[in-house]
């Protein structure tokens, strides 16, 4: 079975532009989370979606937005790009979302975004 797939793998943008990153979860997984990993740091949580609804949001500005589609795939959008947005963006999928219980996360290989 295919794992979490992300596209594109690499992307170069300039300051002020907009970018859309895409994620397809593992078949049967209904929850998708997005993380930002700046070089030399651990991943930081951005969003979690389940059944097309936002279930969690990290400490990121409103320039960051996301959505989940009926087939459970997801898009992360970033507007007005800044140099500091250069990072590896990771998507992770989980089978479900249950309050009070652990759901294993399976990570994709990420999209490397470079801002010039």
């Amino acid at each position, binding site marked *: 079975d295919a794992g979490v797939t992300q596209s594109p793998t690499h992307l170069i943008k300039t300051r002020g532009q907009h970018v859309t990153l895409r994620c397809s979860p593992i078949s049967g997984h209904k929850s998708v989370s997005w993380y930002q990993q700046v070089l030399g*740091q*651990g991943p930081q949580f951005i969003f*979690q979606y389940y059944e097309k609804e936002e*279930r969690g949001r990290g400490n990121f500005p409103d320039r960051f937005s996301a959505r989940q589609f009926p087939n459970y795939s997801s898009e992360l959008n970033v507007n007005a790009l800044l140099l500091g947005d250069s990072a590896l963006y990771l998507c992770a999928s*989980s089978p*479900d979302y*249950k309050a*009070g219980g652990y759901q294993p996360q399976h990570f994709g*290989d*990420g999209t490397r975004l470079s801002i010039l």
Partner: protein
Amino acid sequence: AQSVTQPDIHITVSEGASLELRCNYSYGATPYLFWYVQSPGQGLQLLLKYFSGDTLVQGIKGFEAEFKRSQSSFNLRKPSVHWSDAAEYFCAVGAPGYSSASKIIFGSGTRLSIRP
């Protein structure tokens, strides 16, 4: 608030030697604890996790970790490293009772190099 400290930024060990990567966490109760590995250009792979019970946890690829409540530590160990173990290792902590990915905090990582 939860936090994770990985005091070693970079460690080099000889192939066949033993390995211990340090992790300290800050949390009011016993958290969920995780170790992830990230190879260059790839996403995160879960090595092992601790929720409760036996404080010595076995993971994949011959890794183990020991939870020590008195020291707020969750160090990762391997008796004999292989060249293929060269990667970035992340310790992470999650809040029990929450399924949301937003409750998982990652450390800044330890880069492991293997000396032939």
